[in-house]
């Protein structure tokens, strides 16, 4: 069975150099870090898409219509006449819709986050607990047969502290 290679780095810029080189040579890479490196990674490897915003937008619009439907619909279904005042009253309807816009917008954002980040995921995956303390990790997987030496050389040349050949390891080992 093929093994993946995991390089652990102390410095973020070393990691990014190695990542750029390996990605340029067509390897599948995954970067691990104890802190978000979004800005630095985009700077080095190019900008990434933000699909969540579409879902947030759709959710908010859905929430707005849900609020309108709820307030106007229930008012129409059970009419309470109040001395000539409007049955469909604008201000309270907008207030309710304001809240449901936010609520359902938040829900859609949450769902799309879980969808795109592929969480929750409790299957066994390659991971090293040091990554959550003070190491930056670079995982190279895919078909590496015969190319281990090259990958490991690139990692080493770019200052990796530790290089491991790993299989699907125990999840939290």
């Amino acid at each position: 069975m093929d093994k993946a290679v995991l390089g652990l780095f102390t410095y973020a810029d070393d990691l990014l150099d190695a990542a750029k080189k390996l990605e340029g040579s067509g390897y599948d890479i995954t970067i691990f870090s104890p802190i978000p490196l979004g800005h630095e990674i985009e700077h080095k490897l190019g900008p990434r898409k933000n699909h969540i915003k579409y879902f947030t937008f759709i959710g908010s619009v859905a929430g707005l219509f849900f609020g309108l439907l709820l307030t106007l619909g229930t008012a129409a279904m059970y009419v309470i006449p109040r001395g000539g005042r409007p049955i469909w009253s604008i201000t309270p309807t907008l207030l309710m819709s304001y809240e449901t816009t936010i609520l359902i917008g938040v829900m859609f954002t949450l769902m799309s986050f879980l969808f795109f980040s592929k969480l929750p995921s409790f299957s066994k995956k390659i991971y090293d607990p040091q990554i959550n303390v003070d190491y930056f990790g670079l995982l190279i997987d895919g078909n590496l047969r015969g190319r281990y030496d090259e990958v490991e050389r690139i990692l080493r040349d770019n200052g990796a502290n530790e290089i491991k050949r790993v299989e699907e390891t125990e999840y939290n080992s």
Partner: protein
Amino acid sequence: MAPHHMSDNQTGNAISYKEVNDDVVRTMTETGKWYYIALAGAFSGFLAFWILPWAYQIYKGQGVSGLNTPDFWGIYLTNFVFWIGISHSGTLLSAILFITKTPWRRSIYRSAEAMTFFSVATAAVFIFVHMGRPWNFYWTMPYPNQRQLWLNFQSPLMFDVFAISTYATSSMIFLYFGSIPDLAAVRDRVTGWRKQVYSALALGWRGTDSEWHWLFKAYTFFAVFIIPLAVSVHSIVSWDFALSKVPGLAKTIFAPYFVVGAIYSGSAGIVTLMIIFRKAMKIEKYITLNHFDKLGMLLLVMSLLWSYINVIEVFTGWYANTSAENETLIYRMFTTPYAYMFWLMIVTNTILPLLFIFKKCRTSILACLVVSLGINVGMWLERYLILTTSLPRKFLPYMWHDYIPSWVEISMTLGSFCFFAMLFLLFVKLWPSVSIYEVKEDIGIPMRRGGGHH
């Protein structure tokens, strides 16, 4: 170990990444005897001062409280508004400081957000207490029923149900999703039952680039949603009162007045809580005098805003010059016992916070503690005065009646503080109460070539 140090961070100390993990996990796993004593105290206080009197009230009926015609709104709703107000700083402040990328947010925001969530919970329970027949709560939910009877969405009380449930849900999501990377860090360090719990809570987080990317994007949207939401929640709470026709309540300034008051009391709550929290958890190196300096400036600004609106509120009442408005103002400002409360409120909320003009006071823990506690006493009195000097002095003098809270109400007020303390004590043991990854961001990204940048 590599030198993961920076000296120009908010904490002002050279701290390594590993130390942050160690310290935060330590606050969760090492428990001294004082913690248990405090928890037992808070829990017994909650039982004795809240649950038992509430059971008594449910058994005997709402008559055991001091609520009676015409003052149907008393301490219960005072407490409701007070706790909702306290909740307003945590999440709102955290969201604003996140969007503006303010560095001193990082070590305090987690516990501030928890404070939000717990005080919303405390406030929500007061609605149940005030309801008299809490088992009928589901009547406030829109559900299809045989009589096709729906809610009256034109009532501010219904806005409140939706606003507060949306706020509680969103605050919880904001708190939880901001914590996932830290829950994973805790997962990697603990054993036994904790391992299982945090493995589940961390959702299998590994810290990959893609996870961080999506978390950050989603978190930004949460923050953007939270800000208008929080403003709307306290505006709506104010409309519970301001949409009535009662003198002293029907004021157009009420929405901004309540929002400002909420942020003011919430920020003071954060200061009080942080002073106790950093001392008890020995995390002085993360929550430093610099944080109190910044929070002090915020309190000073909010104090000036609050005082301005308070002057305007009295002024518009006086300028209207109707007998009903005048009576409310005289009752509130010059009649015992309310006059004592009113002028005490002015001292604690307008005069005392002026001390924060001086940096020496902003960076003195004692001054911060005194002023922040004073503000919260004052803000509680403000809500008490709003409710108890308006309804008892409505238009017809033959209906006038002074509100006197009963022991049941006073006891439940005490109990609510015990309940909040209990929830917060449980939180600091069960949750990473200082954000591990954001304190690390503050320390800086370790770079071989040149220092890390923020």
